[in-house]
């Protein structure tokens, strides 16, 4: 069996950082990253981006050495991705915040509203309903993070946790302030509006969960396989016929429901910003699907059936 030699150069300075000899031909990039960490412990594998070309795309962890277009002496270029943090950690932190923060406003903890309102309770049913919906939503997200999602990448750059938490926690506080305010005005069309909005919210939460489960079932535990998602027996998954990312469609739907239920501008703005971000992600995912699968269903749009 022929062994390979691997040299790793810095992508920017071309400095030789590491030389590995007697590397097995069927070694994966992940294994090579582990070997590299031995000589440079500050660059743990999650921080490493190895590529064949200094300006090219990163090689995947699963790529096998002998299948790459390299000679028996392979040259890889290294880029430091910066400090990394696990997706699970980021998700748990960014979702636990809104859950807790909203409750601070709901229970009218001191120093938020005037002192005469401390620990008082709203007389509007919709306010209690909103608290239940908001809390349910974030508990669902936390449980999905722990038990449902299967992540392709283990980590993301560390600075993302500050950016993401500011977004989620900031908006949660802003929304919660108004909904739980002593001067809160209930919806114009009363109980009818609240009932309709609640129905939209519940349907979309069920839909979103169904899609998460369907996506999880596409991918065996511990693997990183990618397949085209298709509708299952669950009617909520039939939205796959029309969109690539129905989880995002349902998520926007949930927040629109919540906005109608609370009739609160900050909620509408949060929905709008979320929709914008999810549309960007959906378009990216849709493009990846089209590139990877020749037989991708042509009727599907990224996030809104027929439109977007």
């Amino acid at each position, binding site marked *: 069996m022929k062994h390979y030699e691997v040299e790793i150069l810095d992508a920017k300075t071309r400095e030789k950082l590491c030389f590995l000899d007697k590397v097995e031909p069927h070694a994966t990039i992940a294994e090579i990253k582990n070997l590299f960490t031995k000589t440079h412990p500050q660059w743990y594998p999650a921080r490493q981006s190895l590529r064949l070309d200094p300006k090219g795309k990163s090689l995947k962890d699963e790529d096998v050495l002998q299948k790459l277009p390299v000679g028996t002496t392979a040259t890889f270029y290294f880029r430091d991705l910066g400090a990394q943090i696990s997706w699970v950690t980021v998700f748990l932190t960014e979702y636990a915040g809104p859950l807790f923060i909203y409750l601070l406003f709901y229970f009218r903890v001191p120093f938020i509203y005037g002192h005469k309102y401390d620990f008082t309770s709203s007389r509007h049913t919709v306010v209690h309903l909103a608290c239940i919906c908001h809390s349910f939503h974030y508990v669902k997200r936390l449980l999905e993070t722990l038990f449902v999602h299967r992540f392709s990448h283990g980590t993301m750059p560390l600075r993302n946790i500050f950016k993401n938490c500011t977004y989620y926690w900031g908006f949660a506080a802003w929304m919660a302030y*108004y909904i739980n305010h002593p001067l*809160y*005005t209930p919806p114009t069309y009363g109980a009818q509006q609240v009932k309709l909005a609640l129905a939209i919210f519940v349907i979309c939460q069920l839909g979103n969960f169904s899609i998460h489960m369907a996506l999880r079932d596409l991918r065996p535990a511990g693997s990183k396989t990618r397949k085209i998602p298709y509708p299952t027996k669950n009617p909520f998954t039939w939205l796959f016929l029309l969109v690539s990312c129905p989880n995002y469609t349902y998520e926007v739907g949930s927040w629109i429901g919540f906005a109608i239920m609370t009739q609160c501008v900050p909620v509408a703005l949060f929905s709008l910003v979320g929709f914008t971000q999810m549309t960007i992600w959906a378009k990216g995912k849709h493009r990846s699907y089209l590139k990877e699968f020749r037989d991708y269903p042509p009727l599907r749009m990224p996030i809104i059936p027929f439109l977007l």
Partner: protein
Amino acid sequence: MSRVFLIWAVTHSVKEVQSEDSVLLFVIAWTITEIIRYSFYTFSLLNHLPYLIKWARYTLFIVLYPMGVSGELLTIYAALPFVRQAGLYSISLPNKYNFSFDYYAFLILIMISYIPIFPQLYFHMIHQRRKVLSHTEEHKKFE
């Protein structure tokens, strides 16, 4: 962006402020800056940049920038009592949109934001000055 804000959201919106000296201060600073800056761009595009223009662009800001910022801050500060009195651009609870906005508080936040932003921009220009003007001197030396 801050120019548009100062003109429309402050000076135009709060008429009582229009006769303040601070308005004169930032208008003069901006005018001189822009005449030099756009001459710089024009000449650069024509590939014939007189050293004087380059020098002016990267030197006069040292005085003009603080001058403009002072004019801006003083104008916003002068507008505050009138904004408070008239409740300008503000909406308070209760209302059916369950939303509130206090323009007075917003203006104060804007003023505070000058504290981190101004030094960053100012020292960036100083750094650019060192790079651009010393580069020209080296070129001249080798001629």
